[in-house]
């Protein structure tokens, strides 16, 4: 169990939330001009990084708002949460405490 900070409600138990995959995927403006491969990339293909991941979460048992989180997939540390539409925060993955384990002191 850990706490996640909803941008509106503040810190809440993890079990009030659900994760919904990669964030910042922009819907193509001209879908009819895309090749099938490009459309397939947009619909199906997602990053699966080891380390820093920007992802969508929803506060399902709380205010039911969507937001974004920058999470380390190795340590599960959440560096930041932010409202939809806000830019990706800069994250230091070499952070000696919360960064990737190989960089930790």
């Amino acid at each position, binding site marked *: 169990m850990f706490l996640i900070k909803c941008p509106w409600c503040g810190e809440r138990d993890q*079990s*009030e939330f659900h994760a919904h995959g990669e964030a910042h995927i922009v819907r193509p403006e001209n879908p009819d001009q895309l090749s099938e491969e490009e459309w397939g990339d947009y619909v199906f293909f997602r990053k699966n990084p080891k380390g820093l991941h920007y992802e969508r979460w929803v506060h399902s048992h709380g*205010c*039911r708002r969507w937001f974004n989180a920058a999470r380390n997939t190795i340590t599960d540390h959440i560096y930041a949460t932010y409202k939809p539409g806000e830019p990706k925060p800069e994250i230091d993955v070499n952070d000696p405490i919360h960064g990737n384990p190989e960089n930790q002191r």
Partner: protein
Amino acid sequence: MNSVNTQANIELTSACYDRKPVTGEHTLQELPLSGKINIRGDSANAEIFSALEKAISITPPVIPNTKVSNDNVTVYWMGPDEWLLVCDIDQVSTISEKIRQHLGTLHHAVTDVSDYYTVLQLSGPQSEALINRGCPQDLHPSVFPAGSITQTRFGHASILLDRQADETTWHIQVRWTYAEYLWDYLVSAMDAL
């Protein structure tokens, strides 16, 4: 064709009509059906906000997980563009119509959700511990005093928790179809105290 048993005799004003109110050290009962109006509209839009304020004659809360009340209504913050207005069941259409008139063509939605949720009232000296059997939120009076509200969960049910002035009475709003689940869970938690 088979005939369908519609159970037309049951008056659907109670979600827990076949559960007896719990009495004793801890009490549990379902409150009479109240009017509930879900209001959607961007609170950051000054035009929308002041029109709504005028329509309901009370300033809607903008601080997450807070409520405001007067003699006629209680308005809960549900999200940055969402409120829940609780009123007398007879007032739902009058108030809804007033909101629609004031908001006119501004981007908004007004929905009668009176029979979508019901409210259970739990009371007793260890009520806080009973709620924490299924709810992960810290409800200690130092962080969650009388008058606090929150949207959280109890077991698998999403709830709106409203701590009453005496600190040991709670109004727990829950989806109609989850009411019996919540009821039975609370009763078994009482047994396990």
